[in-house]
């Protein structure tokens, strides 16, 4: 099979990515600006024997994909701000029970109902800390449709590899805009299958005993092995335990399996970074404006580059520190009040050189907006 060229919305690129990754199950609830994802999957999933269900609310959608994933299906839901808030309890359950699943959050303005049809990147910290208790999470993002596709495939792959919920942090501008997407031929991108236990029926299977590499082979609900799944702290059989050692080791495990693999999980791109004196750190649709500006400036000989983050959580501290090391100033371009900027400040050796170039009014930040910030930092005035 050959590559297929399409002209689609970002939300459809996400759907194509999910299908490429082998999605079997989707549960969702309508919410702007992510609804196109569920509408398209309602049509596409049954074509390949997959299942789609519109649930009664956001909470139920998250719960349904957890149930589906446990039976061995690749499962996903999609939502936006208010729905993402409602899903947090069940996202924490998936972290605790180590059930792979993918949650696309097409960000809109918040808090509360906020600005449903306009862009924002205000859910960065919610993706990290939305659910209660210590835990870790993987969150990916993308600035163009090709990357939306690839990050969606990656999200399924990482969910299966690390047995964890993975958040896709897209945004309204990217979700609704239309542009070209090339759907790669089958086999061109890696698709990770679930790691299943090879133990036979009569062998004692420990669903929550990590292998030496930290991974836990799964056994499908309905399959050979019967075990318990609970959101309580649990032992290697999955049964509730309040043994201090069991609690400590489980919590360490669900955090370490992700934090110890930051390097493997980190995804980023560099644009015009050779010898960059000024580095713009950006992601999602904001990065498009940063790249636009860097390109125009580079054409005039100015050394301004863009470090585009494609994985935000776990935050790639070392990579960011290294890439920003030689910069006169680092400008974090985002559409919130500095959620990634705070991470960048914490990562670099000279946080006083980190500045925020943002926009929070529901409008996509423009190259002109960023230009003004740069001129001010450079002491040139507007």
């Amino acid at each position: 099979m050959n590559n297929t060229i399409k002209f689609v919305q970002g939300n459809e690129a996400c759907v194509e990515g999910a299908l490429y990754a082998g999605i079997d199950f989707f549960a969702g609830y309508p919410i702007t600006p992510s609804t196109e994802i569920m509408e398209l999957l309602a049509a596409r999933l049954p074509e390949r024997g997959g299942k789609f269900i519109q649930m009664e609310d956001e909470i139920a959608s998250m719960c349904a994909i957890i149930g589906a994933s446990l039976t061995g299906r690749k499962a996903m839901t999609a939502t936006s701000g208010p729905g993402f808030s409602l899903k947090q309890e069940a996202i924490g359950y998936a972290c605790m029970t180590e059930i792979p699943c993918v949650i696309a959050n097409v960000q809109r303005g918040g808090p509360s109902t906020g600005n449903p049809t306009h862009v924002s990147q205000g859910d960065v910290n919610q993706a990290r800390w939305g659910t209660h208790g210590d835990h870790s999470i993987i969150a990916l993002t993308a600035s163009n449709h090709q990357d939306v596709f690839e990050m969606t495939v990656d999200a399924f792959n990482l969910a299966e590899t690390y047995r964890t919920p993975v958040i896709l942090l897209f945004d309204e501008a990217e979700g609704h805009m239309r542009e070209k997407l090339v759907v790669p031929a089958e086999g061109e991108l890696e698709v990770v299958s679930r790691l299943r236990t090879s133990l036979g029926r009569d062998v004692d299977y420990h669903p929550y005993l990590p292998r030496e590499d930290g991974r836990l082979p799964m056994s499908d609900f309905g399959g050979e092995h019967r075990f318990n799944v609970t959101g309580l702290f649990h032992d290697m059989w999955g049964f509730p335990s309040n043994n201090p050692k069991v609690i400590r080791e489980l919590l360490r495990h669900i955090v370490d399996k992700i934090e110890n693999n930051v390097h493997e999980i980190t995804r980023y791109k560099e644009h015009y970074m050779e010898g960059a004196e000024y580095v713009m750190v950006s992601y999602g649709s904001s990065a498009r404006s940063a790249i636009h500006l860097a390109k125009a400036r580079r054409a005039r000989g100015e050394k301004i580059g863009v470090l585009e983050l494609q994985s935000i959580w776990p935050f790639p501290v070392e990579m960011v520190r290294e890439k920003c090391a030689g910069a006169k100033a680092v400008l974090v371009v985002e559409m919130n009040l500095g959620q990634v900027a705070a991470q960048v400040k914490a990562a670099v050796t000279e946080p006083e050189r980190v500045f925020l170039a943002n926009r929070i009014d529901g409008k996509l930040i423009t190259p002109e907006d960023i230009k003004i910030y740069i001129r001010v930092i450079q002491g040139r005035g507007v």
Partner: protein
Amino acid sequence: MAVKDYLRQRFFPHMWCPGCGHGTILNSLIRAIEGLELKPHEIVMTSGIGCSARISGYVNVHSLHTMHGRALACATGVKLSRPHLKVLVPMGDGDALAIGGNHFIHAARRNIDLTAIVMNNRIYGMTGGQFSPLSGVGIKATTAPFTTIDNSFDVVELAKAAGASFVARSTAFHVKECKDILKKAIEHKGFSVVEILSQCPTHYGRKNKEGDAASMLEFQKKMTAKIGSKALQENPNLIARGIFVDLDKAEYCTEYEKIIDSVMKEKV
């Protein structure tokens, strides 16, 4: 297979209080499963949070102990993914009808093939005796020191109105009847609801001066009567027991399979 083989015996004695009705319900439930000769690996038991929810840990099947109120939503994902599995969903009264009320009515509306078992002791036991949406008016609870003014749901009427195709009620006292009803509920193709009156002597009984477990069971016997019985005709204040609804109605997973079939055929 012997009845006790359906249990994870290493977790006994169970964690419920002395005199609690939940253990008796577990007894009826595994006898119903045994009677149907179901294999443990064909059964998924999904529960929520609360005293009732601990039931899933004791049964040697695929057991999924979820979040408060979310048992039916998780079970929906399991069932739609693997329709050949028998999915049993025991819940408490607060679990099923307060925090999980929305999932309850919508699972009923879809008529998805799940067996919802409402273990109704009219109180939140795990958290120490707060009133539930099934407590009713005039009940004492830690959150109703001056007695409740909240009306209660009638689970049977609610399930009927929401579209459940099998609706029944029994009690912890009527062990055999309970087992027989559960058997029919599990066999039923579609969303089945079985409300089972249970007793919580620790919280409900003590606060409301209903005596010990034995007298609470006595109450279940005295205050209920079979559908169509003379006792019920003579005293409409009694709570009716038995099967209220048993309909043959389009089931959700079956209907979805039809969509898949027709869409795939169209594509070919």
